[in-house]
């Protein structure tokens, strides 16, 4: 039972991690707390839904990730880049405006009812784990999460572009002075961040549901993760996502009365203990 619960925590943690890592990327490079991130998540799910009617889950996934990358690129090109000298609060509210627009667009196209995205055939069944059936699809989420984490860490830590990204995320001007085209760089990074939001949206489709509010539901949890991790830190966000996943899974069993408060309590405790989050510095 406890093993199953830990596994459950891992599943939700992995999902959160994918969403949060996109948020961290965008925050890292543009210093933007992206309130529209939840709606990108939602947009990904809906696009995948629409495309999957034609091309199946895989097709939907690809379509959503590609479309969201394009959206992210435009967001940076026509939004964040033009606002890069503005104070972060202003840009944050711009993303809030975008959130409203995205939600309205989704509602106009797909209406207000909920939809369901079916898991791919191959991942539909269950396997026996610790003596009870466990959905294969959920295990796949953990795998996707681990893959995303590994790729991101590898990319940022060991590649040239990764070095530029880390440089630009602390000091874009100095990084540009070294000859790095920070505009193109952040266009790419925001695209990847948005694509990750989209990916998470698609992945969550089969076990949550598609509704115009699905974005705001997950947004707060991802903020909690990013802030607990220490804004802008991937390692921090990964750890925080896993902790939050466990806290919710185990809290539901052992502290049911406080379950709703646990994420907030966790965040408050961490920030009071370490005001700049789990990882004092950024990766």
């Amino acid at each position, binding site marked *: 039972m406890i093993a199953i619960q830990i596994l459950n925590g891992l599943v939700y943690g992995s999902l959160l991690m994918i969403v949060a890592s996109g948020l961290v990327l965008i925050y890292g490079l543009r210093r933007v707390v992206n309130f529209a991130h939840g709606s990108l998540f939602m947009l990904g799910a809906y696009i995948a839904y629409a495309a999957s009617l034609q091309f199946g889950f895989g097709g939907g996934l690809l379509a959503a990730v590609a479309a969201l990358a394009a959206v992210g690129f435009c967001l940076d090109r026509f939004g964040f880049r033009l606002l890069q000298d503005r104070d972060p609060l202003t840009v944050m509210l711009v993303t809030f405006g975008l959130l409203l627009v995205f939600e309205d667009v989704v509602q106009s196209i797909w209406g207000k009812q909920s939809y369901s995205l079916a898991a791919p055939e191959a991942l539909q069944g269950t396997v026996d784990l610790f003596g009870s059936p466990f959905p294969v699809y959920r295990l796949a989420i953990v795998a996707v999460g681990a893959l995303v984490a590994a790729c991101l860490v590898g990319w940022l830590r060991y590649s040239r572009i990764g070095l530029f990204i880390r440089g630009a995320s602390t000091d874009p001007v100095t990084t540009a002075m070294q000859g790095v085209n920070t505009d193109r760089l952040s266009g790419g990074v925001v695209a990847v961040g948005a694509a990750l939001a989209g990916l998470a949206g698609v992945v969550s489709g089969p076990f949550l549901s598609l*509704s*115009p509010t699905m974005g705001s*539901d997950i947004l707060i949890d991802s903020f909690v993760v990013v802030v607990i991790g220490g804004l802008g830190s991937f390692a921090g966000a990964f750890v925080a996502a896993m902790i939050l996943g466990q806290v919710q899974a185990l809290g539901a069993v052992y502290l049911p009365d406080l379950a709703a408060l646990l994420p907030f309590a966790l965040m408050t405790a961490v920030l009071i203990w370490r005001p700049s989050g789990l990882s004092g510095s950024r990766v």
Partner: protein
Amino acid sequence: QAKEPVRIGIVNSQSGGFTAQGEDSLRGMQFAVDEANAAGGAAGRPVEVQIGDDESTPEAGRRVAEKFARSGYNLLVGPIASSISLALGQNLQRWDALYVSTLSKSDRITGDACNARMFQANHSDAMDLAIVQPWLKENAKEKRFAILANDYVWGRDSAESFTKAVQKLGKEVDVTLYAPTGTKDFAPYIAQLKNSGAEAVWVALVGRDLIAFAKQAAEFGLTTSKRIIGHAYIMNFVVKATEGATDGVWGVMNYAPEIDTPKNKAYVAAWRKKFGRDPNENEVAGYNGIQVILQGVAKADSVKPTAVAAALKGATLETVWGQATMRAEDHQLVKPNYFGRVKRVGGELRPVIETAFDASIVAATPSNCKL
């Protein structure tokens, strides 16, 4: 001389958490208004509506309602959330308005918060829970039950009422789990439910949480290993949003197209003609709400809220459920209620009525309202 038009202010959830139900119920309301206007108005009065967004919050709902009421659209109808209904109820006197609740279920609307200008046209929670015990007695062989409810007033009330009903029958509740509203991953709860010794699970979750739970319960095979009985569970929008995950789930139902009354038959036929499908429970609730107002106006032959309220009090109304009484002491519309299950009918999965309960059983609930 033309009669004064009926001016209705529709406070609709167009954004926020209740958008889906908001859209449905608005469709039902508009259908009723069009129908009335096509027939030459309500008792010869044209029906005019204004529609505003309550953003699913009492704050915004109150703002919109106050604006409608103060600009003459003072026959109010529409919100989903009970908190909005209660917020409106508090102000009706001040705004000189009347309010007919169509989808809010809180017992307080006809309980401690009742007032002379507020009417409950749909089934309250008490009415839903009143049929649980009789149904269990006749239909449930299970001895041990588990409960999963949202961790707030409605969920807790539902869970407690269900527990009482079970205990009265000499059966027992093994585990009661409360999940915070907004829970997205129900796996931890499902694991506990599966591990419990219960043979059936009573579920009282709100919209979004419910949909997530339904999908995940099917994913983990809970739906097939234990009987699931829902409070506000087997509704079309849930069935549609979960793609087969609700197959076989039991629960309280407030409406189904097959209800055998002349009015319902006509209504369903007209609806099919227009939309090519059956109406769902939210649409009929909206439809019914407007009908209540219009019948009140006709009976009073006035559009003044006080007059309409006086006419509705204790009135017998024609509804799709047949003749129903607007109970004088608390303004609850008393009508039959149903227990059903989700089934495949003609290739389509939808809730189907299994047992009907007469209005007399439904209405046998005390109210602390003193009107």
